[in-house]
């Protein structure tokens, strides 16, 4: 479980996050939604420590992460896996080397053991016979899946995904969503997904948090979204004609 308490963050004179309080549950896909520029990515990067927060606490299972020193944070980060928007695979390394990297860095496994674990992770994300390919040779969806394989190589307790579906076709996006959901349940991880893709929300949103102009505006489940009276959330979620039609149909029946 991850708790965010009274979190505020500014860049120079612009306040990006304002007194945020959220509890992210273990074993669930916690989705953070909001418009571009609402502060989702800053929130995620603040939680993982890539941004220093101005005020507030980030608590990972009872440990106040932002109060730890550099060395303690480093230890804690071994329990964190993160999927970046573009995958962030190392360009000069093959798929196998990318997934093997955390194992090389933080374990004393033999090469055979590392290779076995790498193949296990790649198989889990349905990447087969691509070990020797470089990131430039992979499709967008494959890159994301390899990045997930790398993120889970060390069996992390926490998984963070920043816009996992950006730039993907709906079918591949669905595949990635389901993969994140399955892995979350399988490894009993606390997963936080940043997205503005409503298909993802409806597919895997166990818990949904809506961020609006740096404030936590709404919290609920994917089913609650249809019944909410929250104006800003409705404008965001049902912005398209298709989603408005779905809402009308659901309300009708």
């Amino acid at each position, binding site marked *: 479980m991850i708790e965010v308490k009274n979190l505020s963050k500014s860049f120079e004179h612009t306040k990006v996050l304002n007194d945020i309080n959220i509890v992210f549950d273990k074993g669930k896909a916690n989705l953070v939604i909001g418009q571009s520029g609402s502060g989702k990515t800053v929130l995620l*990067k603040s939680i*993982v420590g*890539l941004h220093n927060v101005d005020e507030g606490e980030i608590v990972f299972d009872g440990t106040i992460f932002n109060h730890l020193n550099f060395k303690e*944070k*480093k*230890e*804690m*980060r*071994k329990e*964190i*896996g*993160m999927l*970046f*928007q*573009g995958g*962030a*695979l*190392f*360009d000069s390394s093959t798929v196998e080397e990318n997934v093997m*990297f*955390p194992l*090389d*860095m*933080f374990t004393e496994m033999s090469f055979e053991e590392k290779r076995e674990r790498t193949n296990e992770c790649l198989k889990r994300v349905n990447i087969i016979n691509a070990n020797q390919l470089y990131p430039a040779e992979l499709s967008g969806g494959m890159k994301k899946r390899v990045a997930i394989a790398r993120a889970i190589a060390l069996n992390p307790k926490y998984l*963070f995904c920043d816009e996992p579906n950006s730039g993907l076709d709906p079918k591949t996006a669905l595949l990635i969503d389901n993969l994140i959901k399955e892995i979350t349940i399988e490894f009993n991880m606390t997963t936080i997904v940043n997205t503005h893709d409503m298909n993802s929300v409806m597919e895997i949103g166990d818990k949904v948090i809506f961020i609006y102009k740096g404030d936590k505006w709404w919290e609920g489940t994917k089913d609650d979204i249809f019944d909410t009276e929250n104006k800003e959330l409705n404008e965001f979620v049902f912005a398209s004609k298709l989603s408005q039609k779905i809402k009308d149909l659901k309300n009708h029946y």
Partner: protein
Amino acid sequence: MSLINHIGKYLVLLYRVFSRPEKLKLYYKETIKEIDKLGLNSIWIVVIISVFMGAVITIQTAYNTENPIYPKYLIGLTARDTLLLEFSSTIVALILAGKIGSNIASEIGTMRVTEQIDALEIMGVNSASFLILPKIVATVFFSPFLCILSMFIGIFGGWVAGVTTGIMTSQDYIYGIQYAFIPYYIVYALIKSAVFSFLITSISAYHGYYSFGGSLEVGQSSTKAVVHSSISILLFNLILTQLLLS
């Protein structure tokens, strides 16, 4: 940002770079890769430039010492001292600042803007040390070899130019390059080349590491890396010359 700020950030980065590596074996592997990429791949440019510069220095010296009062071997001696004292260390370093400096800044800069550095940090890896230390070790270790290679090739180029154009005899040239030889000049050149390599690598890495935005900004970082490395080389050339030769 002011110069003081840049120097401060640069020193903080160096502190992170020289902190204890997580896993020496991985750093060793990376260093070998960097020696190949930054060192061995620079051999040809050093060879080509050195042979031509050696030839030009010889011809120009001959042109300026046509008076019979000057002994012919003076051409060899001048070519040797020019190459040893300045060309093989400083000029080669300035050329490498263009080649290696832009390479390092754009590589690390691209890693920054594509969040690869963030990915390393999230894993708990000291990204500054992991990315920059192997490059510094590789270039500082390999640059003296490039410097020595440049000296030999430059002197050889001078000999070829001198003999084939009929400016002087082979004996005069060989006598000249042996005449009043001061071995310390080689030590001086090697020290300079190691220091310049450190400056090129660390300054370029600094610009790459603190890149932000997109490809345009990475390009700008790359340009800054070359300009600032070159200025630092010239400044430290003056300081080292004063310290080591006075």
